[in-house]
């Protein structure tokens, strides 16, 4: 399969994998695959060759992740900022992506056998139409697979993703599906492109840069960040093991921080619901103060109706997104 290299680990690699797996393992790893161009300069080959090798390395890394029972991987393939590069380079990258997606579609059987679900996160409308159509076909074809998940961030920046999520919530308000008081951290998270995935446990950036470059800023607030100096096309199984080791060392304190944050979130939601109920009772009540039990009932009712509203809204949002993709695929079929 072109996107996931076939093969098994050798004896020593298998041994190390088994040792690592005795500890907590990340379920979702994100990669910033940086260093293709520097690699090309180092090897004195064309830039395009650097990107191609970068893709091959991705295929190999996905194989290692599966061997290590890491079933969800997110990669930063192309940022909206990368459109600033020379036309030749951008066209080259678009062409590479197109070829890879076409190849992917030819391997339907393999994808089904391995249960690979491909998702593409980003503002697809910024891409050339033919690439959009190939992407849509790949995503729709693998939608029901659930053994392993590959999320490719293409035409993506985290700020656009967050702004888009806010826009979707505003759309929900316009459609009368939710109220502005329903907006919460959890709801915003459900409106991101990555809503079908849990937050990454581990984020790895190669090539020695120590910044996030607008990648998954919301989702990685409590993830383990590992910056490695190796260039992406030179990434090895041992680099991956090193990153996982870092994750294991940070696991407990991060878990604690995450739990604390979640507790804080739940408290905030509870307080917000309380405030809304108090507001409602003031406006619709008959002036008499309600006893504690009635207030508690009103709160429970309000929370239940808010949750129902939110579920309906998220269903409508999913439908909107699915329709966008199926429209693209039917356009492709007609073409």
């Amino acid at each position, binding site marked *: 399969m072109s996107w996931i290299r076939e093969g098994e680990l050798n004896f020593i690699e298998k041994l190390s994998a*088994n*040792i*690592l797996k*005795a*500890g907590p393992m990340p379920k979702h790893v994100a990669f910033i695959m940086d260093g293709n161009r520097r690699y090309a300069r180092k090897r004195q080959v064309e830039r395009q060759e650097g990107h191609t090798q970068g893709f091959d390395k991705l295929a190999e890394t996905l194989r290692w992740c599966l061997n290590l029972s890491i079933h969800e991987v997110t990669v930063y393939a192309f*940022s*909206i*900022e*990368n459109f*600033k*590069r020379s036309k030749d380079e951008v066209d080259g990258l678009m062409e590479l992506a197109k070829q890879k997606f076409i190849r992917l579609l030819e391997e339907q059987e393999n994808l089904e056998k391995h249960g690979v679900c491909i998702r593409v996160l980003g503002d697809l409308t910024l891409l050339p139409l033919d690439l959009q159509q190939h992407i849509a076909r790949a995503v729709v074809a693998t939608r029901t697979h659930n053994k392993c998940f590959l999320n490719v961030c293409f035409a993506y*920046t*985290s*700020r*656009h993703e*967050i*702004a888009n*999520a*806010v*826009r979707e*919530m*505003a759309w929900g*308000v*316009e459609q009368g599906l939710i109220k*502005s*008081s329903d*907006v919460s*951290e959890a709801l*915003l998270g459900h409106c991101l492109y990555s809503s079908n995935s849990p937050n990454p446990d581990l984020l790895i950036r190669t090539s*020695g840069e*120590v*910044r*996030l*470059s*607008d990648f998954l*800023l*919301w989702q990685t*607030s*409590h*993830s*383990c*960040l590992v*910056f*490695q*100096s*190796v260039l992406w096309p030179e990434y090895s199984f*041992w680099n991956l*093991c*090193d990153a996982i*080791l*870092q994750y*294991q*060392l*940070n696991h407990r304190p*991060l878990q604690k*921080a995450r739990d*604390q*944050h979640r507790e*804080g979130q739940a408290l*905030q939601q509870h307080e917000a619901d309380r405030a809304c109920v108090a507001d409602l009772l003031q406006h619709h009540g008959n002036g008499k103060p309600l006893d504690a039990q009635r207030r508690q009932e009103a709160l429970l009712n309000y929370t239940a109706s808010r949750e129902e509203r939110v579920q309906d809204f998220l269903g409508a949002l999913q439908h909107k997104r699915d329709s966008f993709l199926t429209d693209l695929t039917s356009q492709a079929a007609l073409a």
Partner: protein
Amino acid sequence: MVLVYEFVWRVLHVLLHIHRTLITLFRIRLRNWNGQLWSRALATLLVPIALSFPKQKKLVPAPGKRVGRRYRWGADGKSLEKLPDHIGLLIAEEEPRYTDIANLVVWCMAVGISYISVYDNHGVFRRNNSRLMEEILKQQQELLGLEGSKQHSVEFLNNGTDKQDNQVLSCQAVVKVLSPDDGKLRIVQAAQQLCSAVEQMEKTSKDINVTVLDSLLRESKSTPDPDLVLKFGPIESTLGFLPWHIRLTEFISLPSHVDVSYEDLFSALQHYASCEQRLGK
């Protein structure tokens, strides 16, 4: 077989913890020596001892004198190729030491950094805002002396929107104390504001974009996004630090803020000065 793997895993992690503890111990002991070369050699030896994997960018702190270089701080700042406009100090440790943090803030000011943010993920600094500020003013007097304190005036930005664009006098620094509420919660509040405007038909959903959201999340027009965040402590994470603002921020890790020296800070700034930002290009 599984038990064997578990056993080996435990041994591996014990070794790693010992390795970490040794590094910390050596750091503390060597701080009292002045043999810089010797300490660097030892530290370099210790780092790869247990593992032969390539290590990530962590600084090996050098021991050094605290006061005494006071008059060179400004010159040091000018000697760097670039200095961050806004530095974030992320304390990812359980017990904060206010004096050490105050020292860091004062050094940052002395070196010429205009905006300094202090953050911890439990909100401890926010709750003890006034204590931290007192400590900063005290250390400013001690480290910079009376003359220096007059030259470097500091403004504390309290949380609540500071709408007025502060006149940035030469050597005036702005110190802000942040907590996780300034991160995701702030973004959610901005989202609620926009949705509320849509509810009142003052805006449509199509009006919402990155620029609109960014202007709501910017405390004041003049505060830049953090260019550099120094993270103190063993946890490798941003721990909720301003998710929106850190898209291009460089992260440099330092082992601890306890007994941190000016040299530690300066070598981090030197690292920052040497990094190249391509901004997508």
